[in-house]
């Protein structure tokens, strides 16, 4: 094969966009500051496995600057499950846990507020009652 025909094959190439990233010229979604943008903070499950008994949003919603508290059931009713790439039809993956949280740190609810700090504070005011479930720690 001739070299000029295959100039990308087996050749060290530089990435076109790297230059701007190493020089501090990157631009990310977090850099975009549109007026009146609302911020989201997420509530995570503290249990390795737990049934979600109830989610009391009232205290969070009563805070000034808090606009919405979204839970898994409401989101699931309005959206399709995420694609998992795995053949596990009985375990639909959802952005926010529905009924059962399956790992510590799984997102359970999302708060929309005027600022990230407000949203984070409001997350702490959501009162979730869990029923911890048995869990496994390894594949065996």
């Amino acid at each position, binding site marked *: 094969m001739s070299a000029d025909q295959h100039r990308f094959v087996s050749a060290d190439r*530089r*990435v076109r*966009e*790297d*230059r*701007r*990233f*190493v*020089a*501090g010229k*990157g631009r*990310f979604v977090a850099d975009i500051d549109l007026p009146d943008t609302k911020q989201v903070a997420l509530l995570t499950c503290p249990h390795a496995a737990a049934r979600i008994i109830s989610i009391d949003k009232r205290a969070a919603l009563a805070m000034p600057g808090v606009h919405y508290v979204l839970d898994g059931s409401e989101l699931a009713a309005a959206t399709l499950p995420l694609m998992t790439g795995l053949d596990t039809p009985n375990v639909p993956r959802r952005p926010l846990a529905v009924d059962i949280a399956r790992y510590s740190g799984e997102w359970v609810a999302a708060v929309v507020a005027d600022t990230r700090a407000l949203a984070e504070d409001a997350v702490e005011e959501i009162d979730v009652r869990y029923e911890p479930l048995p869990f496994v720690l390894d594949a065996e």
Partner: protein
Amino acid sequence: MFAPQAEGTPITTIEGVTPGPGELSPLQDAFCETHGLQCGYCTPAMILAAHALLADNPDPTRDDIVEAISGNLCRCTGYAQIIEAIALAADRIRGRNRPSELRR
């Protein structure tokens, strides 16, 4: 370190390590060469951490490099190419005044 702890001290950001308009420092260049980045989000902090390391220690071991960047998270590269970039830049900076026939 929290930002208020730096009050009253000179601060260099990523824009400040570029030697001139359109130029890259040896570290910035090495990151491009070894593919020490993908999305670029962590890159300024990685490069600044490496600059601070090389300012104190021009001939760092792999462990020194790992320690120096340990405060930063990168979700793209798996760190290997970042470590490679810093080692490459250190070697080039040390060899800057070496006659070309002695350079690796």
